[in-house]
């Protein structure tokens, strides 16, 4: 109760930002009102001038620790989600999980761990052609999207995972993918092709390592 702020506080916004306790209430209201994650930028746009949503979210997050709902980070955004241990209460809300084919699951994992990944890279890893339907399904689920084209001959399109993917799998960032570090350390995420053969995208080794992967997985 102590932080409760006079409701009229916001009217003074022309002069100064509302106290942080009040900002926390605002962020709370905004996050509760949205089923989708909300970015700090979105929050700032909706809150009075001078507010610091990042700080307010940090307080809010702390407040909801251990509660029935939690504040979670999803990429660059935040959302409130029910605590995972209470899922059993929600039979009514449970969404029928689409049964994904093995090909779709593996393709998704390869994109997540190797992103940005081209179709040729996915095929190289799985050793079979990726069907159009598999990619379409993942796109439709909004778990993957097109990334930047690769700067190799043919300028192939790449795929990367989306915020909805992170949200669905309770990941804060793509860096939190289970086992990512170990896989990387073991060299299993390197793009290595058959000795004496061209790379899946027709490029020499060095190029594959630069642009794309770096920005997402910088440590």
């Amino acid at each position, binding site marked *: 109760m102590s932080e409760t702020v006079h409701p009229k506080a916001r009217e003074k916004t022309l002069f100064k930002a509302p106290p942080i306790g009040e900002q926390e209430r605002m962020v709370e209201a905004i996050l*509760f*009102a*949205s*089923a*989708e994650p909300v970015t700090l930028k979105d929050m700032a746009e*909706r809150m009075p001038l001078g507010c610091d949503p990042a700080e307010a979210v940090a307080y809010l997050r702390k407040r909801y620790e251990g509660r029935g709902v939690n504040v979670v980070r999803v990429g660059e955004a935040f*959302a*409130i*989600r*029910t*605590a*995972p241990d209470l*899922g059993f209460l*929600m039979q009514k*809300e*449970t*969404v029928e*999980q689409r049964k*994904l084919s*093995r*090909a779709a*699951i*593996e393709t*998704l*994992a*390869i994109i*997540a*761990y190797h992103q940005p990944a081209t179709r040729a890279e996915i095929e190289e*890893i*799985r*050793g*079979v052609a990726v069907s159009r339907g598999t990619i379409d399904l993942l796109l439709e689920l909004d778990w993957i999207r097109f990334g930047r084209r690769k700067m190799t*001959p*043919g300028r192939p399109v790449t795929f990367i995972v989306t915020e909805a993917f992170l*949200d*669905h*799998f*309770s*990941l804060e960032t793509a860096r939190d*993918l*289970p*086992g990512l570090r170990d*896989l990387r350390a*073991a060299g*299993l995420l390197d793009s*290595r092709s*058959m*000795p*004496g053969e061209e790379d899946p995208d027709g490029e020499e080794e060095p190029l594959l390592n630069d642009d794309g992967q770096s920005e997402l997985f910088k440590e």
Partner: protein
Amino acid sequence: MADDDPPFPTQVAQRLAAESLIVDVDGFEGPLDLLLTLSRTQKVDLRKVSVLALSEQYLRFVDKATELRIELAADYLVMAAWLAFLKSKLLLPPDPQADGPSADDLAAHLAFQLERLEAMRDAAARLMARNRLGRDTFARGTSEDVTKLRKVTYSASLLDLMQGYARVRTRDEFRPYAFDRKDVFTMEQALDQMRSVIAFAGDWTDLVSYLPQGWTAERQRRRSATAATFAASLEMAKQGQIELRQSATFAPISIRKKP
């Protein structure tokens, strides 16, 4: 999350797998997947897998399939051919004169591929076992939409108005110049045309035979089509799809699909 699998199903699974190998090719997601399954029977760390033994297993499998008259998809046969080649290379002492990658490099790479595929498969399983939205965690049930009050104000100045008026009053006199393209065959068209037929051209064929129908009679159209087709062939050669040949200056140009 809860793991529904019985504790150690591997032995049974292996036996079932070994049996099903013979009949159920459809169960495999390609030759690499099959190799991965076969390698499990070696019960070793994938890094120490015997590629030679694995190659033999695979080739035996393919033989058996052939005996049983199971139609194997082309990529299984390609893999078989490659493994047969690798096997012979592995068995022979290395030839110091030979260039290209050594048998050990190739074997090591195959082992790497198997390890990588298995790692991705594990990663996928771990991913799918995470808390999932709509199953373990839930989003807000009643989201309030942010009502967007959009106020649009339009601006236009007197000058805009007058210019607009002048524009419509003087428009009749004006006809933008448009290039008449009726008799122009573009390079894009030529590329489309060639790409659709090149697959059937195994041997050297005169470029002229690629001219589209209806573009050979009239001189002007023929010239445009020839130029476009030639440009398209250069482009395809650059992309490594075809080869070009001309025996002498002004001699007919022939092309063929790059073998």
